[in-house]
């Protein structure tokens, strides 16, 4: 696993991230650093998340709390996608008759509504 970053390394690594901006993002819980022997550290995932937060902030000049909410919705969508993929993989591993039954069932549920 790659090494986690200190605050100074993080500010250096993320485009358009300043010390003031990081403070504002931290107060809105946009990222949550981890306590370690080296002080608070950030993972690669935090870095990519902050990059996205900076971009959204630049594009839409959002309140940090609004930005935090948008990111949490994005997280939920990603989570949902990952779990949906798990379910589909499980369906795919079923014997043929079961699979076609499931496909039919899901298709019906999706398209016969309304």
């Amino acid at each position, binding site marked *: 696993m790659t090494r986690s970053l*200190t*605050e*100074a*390394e*993080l*500010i*250096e690594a993320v*485009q358009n991230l300043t*010390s*003031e901006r*990081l*403070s504002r993002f*931290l*107060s*809105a*819980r946009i990222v*949550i*650093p*981890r*306590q370690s022997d080296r*002080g*608070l550290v950030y993972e*690669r*995932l935090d*870095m*990519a*998340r902050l*990059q*996205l937060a900076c*971009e959204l902030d630049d*594009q*839409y000049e959002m309140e940090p709390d609004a930005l*935090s*909410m948008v*990111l*949490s919705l*994005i*997280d*939920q*969508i*990603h*989570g*949902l*996608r*990952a*779990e949906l993929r798990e379910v589909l993989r499980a369906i795919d591993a079923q014997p043929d008759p079961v699979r076609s039954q499931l496909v039919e069932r899901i298709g019906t549920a999706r398209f016969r509504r309304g």
Partner: protein
Amino acid sequence: MSDDPYSVLGVSKDASAAEIKKAYRRIAKDCHPDLKPGDEKAEARFKAAAAAYDLLKDPETRAKFDRGEIDASGQERPQQQYYREYAETAGNPYRAGGGFEGDDMSDIFAQFFGNRRGGGFGGARTHEFHAPGHDVNYSLQISFLDAVFGATQKLTLPNGDRVEVKIPAGITDGQTIRLRGKGAPGYGEGPPGDALVTIRVAEHPVFKREGDDIRITLPITIDEAVLGGKVPAPTIDGRVNVTVPEGTSSGKTLRLRGKGVRKRGSDKRGDQLIELSVVMPDKIDDELKQFMQNWRKSHSYDPRKGMPA
């Protein structure tokens, strides 16, 4: 796809800066790869729009491009790490827990597997469900000066464990610290969740935080305001003497460089701002009253000159 940044953004050559920004925002909203995961067409469109916007947002580079001094290709953005490359991974700590406690998607799984275990299948035990435990939120109140200088605080968890929370110097109100593995136990063989400790910084009667700066209001006497002089002032490092200039009015602000809070990711510190406020004596005695009455007769001045009547 066209190389012309104007047609990439769908604006005319004479579009205003605001129109260009608006066009870019619209494409970013529809096509940002982190908002549209898995859509390659959208991603290509976003990248082209981002490159076009980079070129056109700065009036100088835009003018250079318009004059043909640079071409559209020279403005490629540096390789970017997209959040979605991490966001879907099982280890994404922001997916479970966080702001929507108890509402994260794993609960759908947990409920599903839980119900099945409960007996839907006539006692035929299905496989155990494994998932990381929930993150647990805690709140920790610290003093203003502990936030400024950093401190170590003990937190007692519901199971009786005591954990140390190391508060770094310069922490701001609302910041949260992750203590790995100190949350709820995992489902099945899943790892435990994290403890998320949100720091609440108590107000200080004298010092106020403004980013990395600290602001105080310092009362001075009328004689100090008129004559000027050295006046003692509190700072977070202790008392210092500041020079009040002759003829100081309320609201004048002095700046002590480097007497503020440590900046994040650096050894530098912000400043302390001292707003001076002239305070009258408790009692206006006859001597002062008489002096002012005499003084007024020959020294009138109008600080409200130019204000609307």
